[in-house]
């Protein structure tokens, strides 16, 4: 049968359509998805400011100077945490008992006293916010909620109630309010940039200043080592005079770091180990159970069709249910913790690995088996020398591959109940403020995942050589 020129040309021309049609289809689908997920709307609503705050908080810590009006008590803390009260005060805060001056850096200053907050910008502009009665007055203006317009509006303190009303923009234009501040009847708040924050309400006057770094990362606020430089700590480690008579100085320093109550390095480490354990144990069990089952599900090993079918469906079933769902089932039975996580991993991956192994067994090169068989080898010997060397590389590489990916899965299962670093992460995330902890945990997780990647790659090369695949 021969094809005419015209036909060839037509067919060839028609084939051009496919790549173009494929692209158009993808575009149409993405356009549909754009609207289905209302991407435009979501992006419009996205709060980028919050992203900026988050990234600042991830790598900064703040000093909080707070005057509680209930009892006129001044407290200077780090991150507002209990147990971090500063005494003596840092040089940029001075107080005479009545008035407290805070140097916010870059020429910004704040002065707090019992009823008022005075905030001065580098150019000399001053904003005075006072509590008068139950309300806050800023540079002589009061705020009220305009119910008809659902927003705050302002009037001069001296004018009769709600006359001479002006808008926020007017006050900014008049220089009464700094642009970007928030002023409501009971509150005035302003943060000129990401590193400073002043606020006054009926209950408290508060000034915050941010510094780069992770405060108390090495030693907690209560630790005797907290103010020491690295060289000093190093000196202590090697010095003979024990700080704590019961411990050597090296041990003491380590424990001070390890049990740092703020960063809880020991807890994080345990959590990491839990996650690792989940992945390791789960993958090992899956590989150990999957291999024999894989043999039983391989047509060239098990001639019984029915039992093979049953096993294959079992694999599908185990794989088909997600790890998360398995872990929910197991929480009821085995409680919370890494055992539950590893069982969930073991169940799903027994399905996956069993299937992979049975396919590998079915795909082995029969020539090798035949070669062994032709020497008069018994069945066991045929498997030992004809089959095992062939599937061992698959076994090793797939097991290691799943181990790698299970480290990531274990963080996820952990996050949703089983514990470990994943749970710590989610909990830190859910506070919406311990971003430095989140960052720390992410670094830890990434280090472990990458280390695992490298380690398993190394092991794979060691065990099965460079050239496979």
């Amino acid at each position: 049968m021969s094809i005419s020129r015209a036909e060839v040309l037509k067919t060839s021309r028609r084939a051009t359509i496919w790549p173009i049609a494929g692209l158009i289809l993808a575009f149409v689908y993405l356009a549909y998805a754009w609207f289905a997920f209302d991407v435009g709307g979501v992006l419009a609503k996205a709060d980028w400011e919050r992203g900026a705050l988050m990234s600042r908080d991830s790598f900064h810590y703040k000093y909080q100077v707070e005057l509680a009006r209930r009892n006129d008590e001044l407290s200077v803390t780090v991150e507002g945490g209990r147990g971090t009260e500063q005494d003596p005060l840092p040089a940029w805060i001075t107080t005479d008992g009545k008035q407290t001056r805070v140097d916010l850096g870059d020429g910004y200053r704040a002065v707090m006293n019992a009823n008022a907050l005075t905030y001065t910008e580098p150019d000399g502009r001053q904003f005075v916010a006072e509590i008068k009665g139950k309300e806050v007055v800023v540079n002589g203006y009061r705020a009220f909620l305009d119910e008809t317009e659902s927003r705050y509006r302002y009037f001069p303190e001296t004018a009769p109630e709600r006359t001479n009303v002006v808008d926020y923009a007017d006050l900014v234009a008049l220089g009464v309010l700094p642009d970007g501040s928030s002023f409501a009847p009971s509150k005035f708040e302003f943060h000129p940039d990401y590193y400073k924050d002043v606020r006054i309400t009926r209950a408290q006057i508060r000034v915050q200043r941010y510094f780069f770094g992770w405060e108390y990362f090495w030693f907690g606020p209560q630790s005797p080592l907290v103010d020491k430089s690295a060289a000093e700590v190093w000196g202590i480690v090697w010095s003979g005079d024990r700080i704590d008579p019961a411990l050597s100085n090296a041990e003491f320093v380590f424990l001070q770091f390890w049990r740092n109550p703020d960063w809880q390095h020991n807890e994080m480490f345990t959590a990491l180990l839990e996650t690792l354990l989940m992945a390791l144990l789960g993958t090992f069990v899956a590989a150990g159970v999957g291999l024999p089952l894989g043999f039983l599900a391989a047509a060239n090993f098990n001639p019984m069709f029915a039992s093979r079918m049953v096993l294959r469906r079992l694999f599908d079933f185990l794989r088909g249910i997600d790890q998360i769902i398995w872990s929910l089932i197991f929480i009821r039975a085995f409680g919370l913790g890494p055992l539950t996580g590893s069982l969930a991993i073991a169940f799903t991956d027994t399905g996956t690995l069993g299937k992979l192994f049975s396919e590998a067994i079915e795909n082995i090169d029969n020539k090798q088996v035949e070669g062994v068989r032709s020497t008069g080898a018994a069945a066991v010997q045929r498997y030992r020398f004809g089959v095992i060397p062939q599937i061992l590389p698959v076994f090793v590489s797939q097991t290691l591959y799943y181990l790698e990916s299970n480290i990531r899965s274990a963080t996820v299962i952990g996050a949703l109940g089983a514990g470990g670093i994943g749970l710590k992460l989610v909990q830190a995330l859910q506070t919406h403020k311990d971003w430095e902890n989140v960052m720390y945990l992410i670094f830890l997780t990434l280090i472990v995942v990458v280390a695992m990647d490298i380690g398993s790659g190394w092991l794979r090369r060691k065990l099965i050589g460079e050239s496979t695949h």
Partner: protein
Amino acid sequence: EDLTEIRIGILGGENASDRLKAYTCLEEKVEALMGVEASVFAPADYSGVIEGLLGGNLDLAWLGASGYAAVYIADPEAVEPVLVKVNTDGSYGYYSIGFARVDSGITSLDDMKEKVFAFGDPNSTSGYLIPSIEIPQKGYSMKPGEYFKDIKFSGGHEQTIVGVFNGDYDGGVTWADGLGTWEEGFNSGALRKATDAGLVDMTEIREIWRSDVIPEGPFVVRKSLPEDAKVKLTGLLASLPSMDPDCAYGVLAGDAKGLAPITHKAYVSVIEARKAKIKN
């Protein structure tokens, strides 16, 4: 039954890592008192603790009222309530607070017609159970599309607050103790935490609804624990505020007057409410 371990469950979600820190002192005290190991578990959401208690895998936990109801409904023999937190003003209750953005013009539930309303976690007492009972009683149907345009579960109190503040939802509910000032997010509760975290500016949202007082959730112990273990644990907890106020502050998540004994009776109505919810 030989006790080898005391396992304490904490409700996850809000600020669990801080709470874990706070619970280490309790852990030490339990170990000292009972002579067995104690460990604290903080699952990611309400159902984790509930499942843990139902499976007999936790010995002590502080539940929300609705969480207790969930456990009780699934298995009345699983746990018994022993203590409840008493607030500084002597009350042992808190409120479910409905709120909306100031600039949305919504001032009460009347303005929520055809708007999106958000609950927190379906196992939360204040974040779902109570409002889902009390709001329809006031005549606002809770079927999506009937009165409200849609009803959503944000997943937790923080998410509700952030969602409403962001405009994802028109209104939502969360909890607060009702004490202190609105601007600071009350004395304690989810709004206070969100304010402290810089997530919301309270002057940009306002209260649009408040529930009747909700009883604080109970501390529960596993029913099958040996009697003397139950007594010891209860005693330890009850004396905590006087013996170690700092520890109590952490364990009870803020200032409290103390802990008072409580029995199952106090939660019958919540349980009935939850049962009614399940039927629908």
